[in-house]
């Protein structure tokens, strides 16, 4: 066993428990006083996501991690990303549109792919002027999940890789099905005129 990994995992576990206590208190206050503190809860969840992503990055880079693949309903996955991000973006006058008509199940790691999409939407929100589009469609025997915005696009291609991107790239490659591998593509081919993040899963 990796001692350091255990220490990190347990520390993050405890921190997220504390965050959950904080979020539940805020939710109770909202219900009690009829006020909206969604942004406070959003900040807590974003911090928790960041911790999870850091741990995932450590696992992926230091260990031979395997994704935990279960059948996931694609439209449900997109709906959860929308639930997490939509109102936060709306406060910045950015509209998140979801175009995920796929009611089918797809074998993928729900939490890691969900985190990847959340991260991509957050990034898009930082550069978008008014609109971000999250879409899912079948392409041949693959699944294409894309996040597009109407911002200026990436200044250089390929863009400089942060933690989120490094993890995303590894994760895409770890999704393997019948010899086919997932892939990640970043370019400026957005249908909205800006940057486009595309995750392809076999």
């Amino acid at each position, binding site marked *: 066993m990796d001692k350091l990994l255990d220490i990190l995992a347990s520390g993050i*576990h405890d921190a997220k428990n504390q965050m959950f206590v904080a979020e539940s208190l805020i939710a*109770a206050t909202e219900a009690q006083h009829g006020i909206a503190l969604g942004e406070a809860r959003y900040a807590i*969840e974003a911090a928790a996501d960041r911790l999870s992503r850091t741990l995932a990055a450590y696992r992926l880079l230091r260990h031979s991690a*395997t994704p*935990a693949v279960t059948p996931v309903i694609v439209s449900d996955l997109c709906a959860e990303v929308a639930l997490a991000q939509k109102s936060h973006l709306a406060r910045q006058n950015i509209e998140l549109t979801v175009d995920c008509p796929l009611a089918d*199940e797809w074998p993928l790691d729900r*939490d890691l792919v969900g985190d990847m999409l959340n991260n991509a939407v957050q990034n898009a929100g930082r550069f978008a002027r008014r609109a971000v589009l999250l879409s899912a469609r079948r392409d041949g025997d693959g699944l294409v999940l894309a996040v597009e915005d109407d911002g200026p696009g990436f200044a250089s291609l390929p863009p400089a890789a942060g933690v989120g991107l490094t993890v995303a790239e590894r994760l895409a490659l770890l999704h393997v099905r019948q010899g086919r591998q997932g892939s990640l593509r970043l370019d400026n081919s957005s249908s909205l005129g800006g940057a486009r993040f595309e995750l392809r899963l076999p």
Partner: protein
Amino acid sequence: MADFSQKRFLVIDDQPLARDALRTIAQTVGAFAVEFASNYQDAIYRIRNNTPDIILCDYVLGEGRSGQQLLEELRRFNLLPDECIFMMVTGEQAYEQVVSAVELVPDDYIIKPFSPDKLLLRLERIVAKKNFFAAYYKEKRQQEYARALAILNAQRDSEAGRPYRFEILRQEAEVQLASGDAEAAEASYRNILDNYEFPWARAGVARSLHKQNRLTEARDEIERVVAGTPHFFDASDIKANICMAQGEHAEAQKVLDEVSKKTPRNYLRKRLLAEAATLNGDMETARAALADVVANDTMPGAVTTEDRLSLARSHIDKGDKISAEKVLVGLRDSEIMVLGLDGQASFAALLAISSVDKGKPRFAGLRPALLASELEPATRLDVMRAALSLTDNDLADRHAEHLMASPDAKKVFSAIRSQYALHGRENDFREIQRQVALKRIHHDDVPAAGPG
């Protein structure tokens, strides 16, 4: 939108702060009543007495227990009706690794921290799914397997079934296995594997092959699963069972020894370990495992009379007839009365071995039934041993011969041989072996299994 305002929630968590947080969230989604359980036993007690509508269970329960273990125990004792929602709550992604591998999964799991809205979304999906499968669950519960399969079949290609294709295939395979159609189950699991290499589906193939007595293939399949997903402990149980059927008792025990250390409070696994250790001739491990089961498997009704018979058997194996006798005479008549012929025969046989005076009359009284009836392999072994020690050679040989000609021959071969050797009857054993082989040549319909 599903309405949760009339629902009763049960929150299971050993940490008071986390418990309060879960309650708060449950109340925010409109729960009618929220109950608490602070530990494993308390949770089982509450669920038995008054099944909640929705269970929010933390994965880490303390005292070496996990939410997954609780889920398995609830299913084992049939305490979770299909209508009840079981949601695992976890602080870290590690549980996802478990869910993606194992065969027995909760309705869903959710990672902390999460908002009331997210919980609501997840609960609504579970309700939709349960509604979709409601008619099927009903037939399955009543063991109307043909009708259950017909429902799945109709749903598989329906538009409403689109989100549940994998689940439909998985349920189909499970029903086929439960109804004894191992070949169809194998085909269904392979159908799933054609889509994706899920460990639980590969384990299903192994179980289906085992049921068809295709042991070498079953072993190959389960080895792949064990190697690929070491945290999938049930796969080790399946492997051990296959090893035992192959007569590889040392390997079976080794596998179970390792995995039992990681799951010290899984008493079904302890029972399996005892079985493997017994077959492997490691009498001390068998005795210790069974003593642990009888002392610590605290679910009411979990420790059965059969468990006590196994414990007595392990004492006899160790040569401790006094302890065996103590266990056997400690059983109440009412407990023995309700046993079937197998249990009664084992009880009489083990008592006759540990105390000839006390056991011989009862054993003799059962003799006509023991000659005429079909018995379980473990019972036959007990009867054979008692008969050998009472020098009732006819009875002993009859059961030995039957065992050697059965599909369980590899499993029990060395036990039979050592018992005959113990009573100085090695030559008679070889003669029985020869007779069985001859009969097999003359009758192709005898199941092909034997030592070797």
